[in-house]
């Protein structure tokens, strides 16, 4: 497809006549807009200027209890100022933005970046960085990582997390946190079904080894319903809205989302069909999951599972803390009644899965002093600071050294879920992933609602993705 630069052809392209007055007015505005090219990383100034330097940062929120995403940057300024030795003083202006709504937050940053009013540091999901690379909203950090590898805890960042920060071989973010998305289960309900305490407590291990696989979970849920221990459709609750969790069942069945060699998106038809089949069976055939799950209000989901009405349910590790703060469930009560495990393998002997969605700090192209901004991030990446975030918000460690951190070590939930990172997968870093995701999610809804069968859904979804992202998709 031949492309022409709009700005270049504009001046000669239109003849000015009275009739075309309006058209040219608009075009002139458009052309002028084009001329304000997003510049490459600011070349201005020394890396470390003298005097006070203001660094601005946005983090999403305030979605309590994750406020250390912001506060750690503020604390890091003190550490950095000590290292800078008085010549330079860093002052950090970090703000919560958009009240926890990702769509709003990302859109706000995009427009701010376009208007050159974006902050120096932005917190975002790893996959959000991918579309920002094209217009250079964020800068590659590889050189800075090399130069300051001993600063903060950079060298101890868990290697797989660095992988999630990469696009086409370059690193664009520093991991801020990560988590796993377990399958929670009600211990009290399993006990009612006659399970022994050992069997209940051994469930996570059975899943890990592949002894307790997906068909076993379905059978257990069905049994609970038939025995009247849970109500109809309350054997399993999946995530109620869009999100990375949905892909656990795609990965569970051998799905691949991105091609390592080309970076293109991948859809594996067979895995997709099985993924849809899991949901279709649960809702329509086995009736272990209510049809109302799709789009169910998050608050209702939480109330229902915390009332102990659902046997198995999906939620992130961070929910463990949220349930305690928002629903006033005492820690011990939660431990007594709720267990957590990986998503069981599709078949006995298979490998269980989970999905993680690491967040990252990135340096924007608007940063006047990218080096200082980066060093601030590095100093926020220490076992002490990050463990505070982990412990208050039930996010998992990003540094190998955190397991020895006194704060982190005391949190038995974090220690008990840390192993899940060995089984975790990521969603792809690709500029068109959002479009791919939208199609797959809508078809998931259609399958659950009985609008189409899984087989039809796969054919139509693949066709739709192909028609919307063109040659950026590989079908297997």
């Amino acid at each position, binding site marked *: 497809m031949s492309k022409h630069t709009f700005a270049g052809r504009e001046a000669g392209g239109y003849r000015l006549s009275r009739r075309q007055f309006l058209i040219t007015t608009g*075009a002139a505005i458009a052309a002028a*807009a084009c001329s304000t090219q997003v510049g490459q990383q600011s070349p201005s100034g020394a890396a470390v200027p003298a005097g006070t330097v203001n660094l601005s940062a946005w983090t999403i929120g305030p979605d309590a209890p994750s406020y250390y995403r912001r506060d750690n940057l503020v604390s890091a300024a003190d550490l950095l100022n000590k290292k800078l030795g008085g010549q330079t003083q860093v002052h950090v202006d970090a703000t919560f933005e958009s009240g926890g709504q990702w769509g709003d937050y990302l859109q706000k940053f995009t427009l701010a970046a376009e208007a050159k009013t974006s902050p120096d540091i932005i917190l975002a*999901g790893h996959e959000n960085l991918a579309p920002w*690379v094209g217009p250079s909203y964020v800068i590659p950090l590889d050189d800075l990582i090399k130069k300051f590898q001993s600063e903060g805890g950079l060298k101890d960042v868990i290697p797989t997390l660095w992988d999630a920060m990469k696009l086409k071989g370059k690193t664009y973010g520093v991991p801020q946190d990560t988590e796993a998305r377990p399958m929670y289960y009600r211990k009290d309900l399993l006990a009612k079904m006659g399970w022994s305490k050992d069997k209940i407590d051994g469930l996570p291990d059975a899943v890990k080894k592949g002894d307790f696989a997906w068909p076993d979970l379905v059978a257990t849920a069905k049994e609970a319903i038939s025995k009247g221990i849970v109500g109809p459709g309350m054997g399993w609750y999946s995530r109620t809205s869009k999100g990375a969790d949905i892909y656990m069942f795609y990965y569970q069945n051998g799905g691949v989302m991105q091609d390592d060699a080309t970076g293109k998106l991948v859809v594996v038809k067979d895995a997709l069909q099985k993924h849809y089949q899991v949901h279709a069976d649960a809702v329509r055939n086995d009736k272990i999951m209510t049809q109302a799950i799709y789009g169910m209000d998050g608050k209702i989901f939480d109330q229902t599972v915390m009332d102990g009405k659902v046997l198995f349910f999906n939620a992130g590790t961070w929910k463990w803390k949220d349930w305690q703060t928002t629903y006033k469930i005492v820690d011990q009560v939660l431990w007594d009644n709720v267990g957590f495990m990986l998503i069981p393998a599709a078949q006995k002997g298979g490998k269980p899965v989970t999905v993680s969605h690491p967040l990252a700090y990135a340096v924007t192209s608007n940063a006047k002093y990218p080096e200082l901004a980066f060093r601030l991030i590095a100093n926020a990446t220490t076992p002490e600071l990050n463990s505070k975030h982990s412990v208050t918000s039930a996010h998992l460690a990003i540094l190998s050294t955190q397991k020895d951190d006194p704060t982190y070590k005391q949190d038995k939930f974090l220690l008990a879920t840390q192993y899940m990172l060995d089984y975790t997968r990521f969603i792809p870093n690709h500029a068109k992933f959002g479009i791919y995701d*939208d199609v797959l999610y809508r078809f998931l809804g*259609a399958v659950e*609602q009985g609008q189409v069968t899984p087989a039809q859904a796969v054919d139509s979804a693949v066709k739709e993705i192909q028609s919307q992202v063109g040659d950026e998709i590989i079908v297997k």
Partner: protein
Amino acid sequence: MARIEEIALPRERQATAWWRFNATALLFLGPAMALVLVFFIAPVVITFVMSFTDLATSTGLSNWQWIGPENYQRMFRSQFWLTILGNTFVYVAVVLAFNVIVGLGIALLSVHVEAKAGGLFRSLWLLPRISPSVVYALMWTWAAASPPFGMINYVVEPFGVEPRYWIQSDPWLIVILINGFVGASFGMLIFTSAIKAIPEDLFRAAQVDGASALHVIRRITLPLIKWPILFVLVYQTMSLFASYEYIYLTTNGGPGLYATETWSLWAFHTALSNYYGNLDFAYGAAMAAILVLMGLGISVVMLRLFRFGQLVAEPRVEV
């Protein structure tokens, strides 16, 4: 009734007067024209131009690259454009009917009861309009929530209706109700004020003739508020074509395969609201461009149909 210039100006000075009138008109219309040019015309032109580029989050808004009609081809390559188009027309037609009929009904009823009570009911009907949309939508999502929650379930259960998650099982019902209850107040407001502006003598005369209330409505009120009704019809049609907010906040176009997605919501999703932030500005602009064309076409047809020419007739003065 007479034309302005015939009264205002002697005929011999008509030529100079013509210019004077244009200059005066420019003075009065200048600010409005400037605003319209900058904030209506320019954005529409930019939208059309943009729809032939590949602007997206991944290119930024500054690097305009021509890709020809690819966005339009891509739109019609989607399996769902027809569904979405159909939804749009169903949405506009049904909500419009609800708005106008209910608005008219409330207006008529509220002027037939005691003034205070009528005022109270009209205030109640204005509530949805004056509430912030997120709060209003929240009330509906909780009313329609899944069992064992949801006020609707509590209300209909005694009548033998099985409790359900209404937003998902009957998405259109919710979309129509949530929009209908907001939109009806617009018609109600216009109609009530129009009815109140009808000279009392007409009603008195009917009173003397011993006409029934229904008769009065049919013979006097309705014919006299014909123009407001047509105005509301046309105005609301255009509003509905461009609106998406309450659908976005309740069904969000679902469940499943674009069940309640309308064209403007599609454009909004594409250009401004993607869960992973992959906004397709240019593709969304192509959708908006189609929407502009649809809106224009339908308004022109409606204006013709209702002989709106009379409304834009030359200035005249009521004496």
